[in-house]
């Protein structure tokens, strides 16, 4: 698999002289690492992710930014991007939706069908291949979106609060699904969330950002053993210690 590293060297994003979304952020995400970015809303988390995906308008971002060894570019084939909303096409079945990304990237029909079927099975949607999105619950729809994202088989996954719209129970289930998919072939994940518990549960490292203009105030290593069980962690004292630590860092960022 190609190089999955993401390197930010004093990256800033200014939408206008007054609106500085991100200020001088330096960060290295190693190949295969699961890194979460947490911070108050408006701290530029999503802006950083959009920068990595090449979605920012030209000229607003500055500094050294490489994603998989390349500068950020729209449509980078090393990247799969997952949004907070599922963005499923309502006129396509679950299977056709899971294939959609690979289809646009020109993966051969038989190959993308195999990948989509395999992933729908892995996310727990076996038997729902022919269902249209309106027949699926929100959690199931986001499972399809996960399948679509992983079917791209990219070394890098960018996820912008992918479970932000789900209820607590469904969220825990999907975190487990994501962890097992990630465990399977170890891709680099840059994961945006405002949910500290989610960040600590999933990540190798949690990056804490301050309020706008966003800066990094802490880089916390999460040394909980893997593979992790999302449910078991909720009762683990080590988990709660890390959670409290990240929380205090977040508060420092808010007050500074």
């Amino acid at each position, binding site marked *: 698999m190609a190089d999955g590293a993401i390197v930010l060297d004093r990256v800033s994003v200014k939408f206008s002289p007054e609106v500085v979304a991100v200020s001088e952020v330096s960060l290295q995400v190693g190949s295969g690492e699961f890194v979460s970015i947490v911070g108050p809303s408006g701290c530029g988390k999503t802006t950083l992710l959009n920068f990595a995906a090449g979605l920012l308008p030209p000229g607003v971002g500055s500094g050294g930014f490489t994603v998989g060894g390349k500068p950020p570019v*729209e449509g980078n084939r090393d990247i799969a991007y997952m949004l907070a909303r599922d963005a499923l096409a*309502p006129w396509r079945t679950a299977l056709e939706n899971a294939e*959609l990304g690979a289809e646009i990237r020109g993966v051969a029909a038989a190959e993308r069908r195999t990948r989509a079927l395999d992933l729908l099975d892995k996310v727990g949607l076996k038997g729902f291949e022919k269902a249209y999105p309106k027949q699926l619950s929100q959690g199931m729809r986001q499972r399809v979106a996960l399948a679509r994202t992983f079917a791209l088989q990219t070394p890098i996954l960018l996820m912008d609060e992918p479970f932000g719209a789900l209820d607590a129970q469904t969220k825990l289930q999907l975190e487990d699904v994501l962890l097992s998919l990630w465990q399977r072939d170890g891709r680099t994940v840059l994961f945006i969330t405002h949910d500290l518990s989610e960040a600590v549960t999933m990540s190798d490292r949690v990056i804490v950002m301050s309020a706008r203009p966003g800066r990094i105030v802490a880089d916390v290593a999460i040394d909980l053993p893997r593979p992790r069980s999302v449910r078991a962690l909720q009762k683990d004292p080590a988990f709660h210690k890390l959670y409290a630590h990240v929380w205090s860092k977040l508060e420092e960022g808010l007050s500074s």
Partner: protein
Amino acid sequence: MNDGALPRGPAIWIGRLVILGLFFGAWEKVSDLRLIDPILIGAPSGIARFLWDGIFVNGELLGDLGWTMLGTLLAFVLGSLAGILVGMVFVTSPTVESLLNPIFMALNAMPRIALAPLFLIWFGLGLGSKVAVGFSLAFFIVLSSTVAGGRGVNPDHITLARTLGASGRQIFAKFVLPSAVPVIFNGLRLGLVYSLLGVVGGEIIAAEHGLGQALQLLAASFKTNGVFAIIILLSLVSMCIMTAMNLLENRLLRWR
């Protein structure tokens, strides 16, 4: 029949037939007793005889119906194709739209039936002028629904497509077009009804054949039963068209 549940099955149909029977019975009686002059309201028995003769005995109505349907079909197909094509150009090129849209709006503001005499001069007494009236109605209806449908694309789909590196053509074919189809369909349904309206309107003004022309002739000679017969025939045809469109829509848009 359960309390609270909607009545179903033959009962509701019997009820409807009873209402219609009472209505036509009263009409017949009023006409028979000359409570209202039969020149004004005709009589259901006379209308039925006229329809029977025109359809099964001498076939005159069928011939006229054929001409009207042919004109409607041509106006609808040509108007819809042109409307969808121009609409798609508008959706993909805002420059063309801002250039042409005000002109088209002005054209669409013209009362089309007032143009019919002009179309008669240009295209003659035959089918051409009727198709022109129907076309001029259907075109603008389908055009505006196509533009509305093309605009209604989900912004999340565009973001997703951009991160996937979709080409302009892929975005159009895989997101813009399919999401526009339901709205275009509403325009098509309306366009078909207005095609019929335009053709019949044109026939009433001047024609060689068609139900509108027959209607005009009958009314001019105070053959009220014949006028009612044609009105009933036209509404039956309209209802058949709507039902056919609904069936087609339910088939094509199962995913909704």
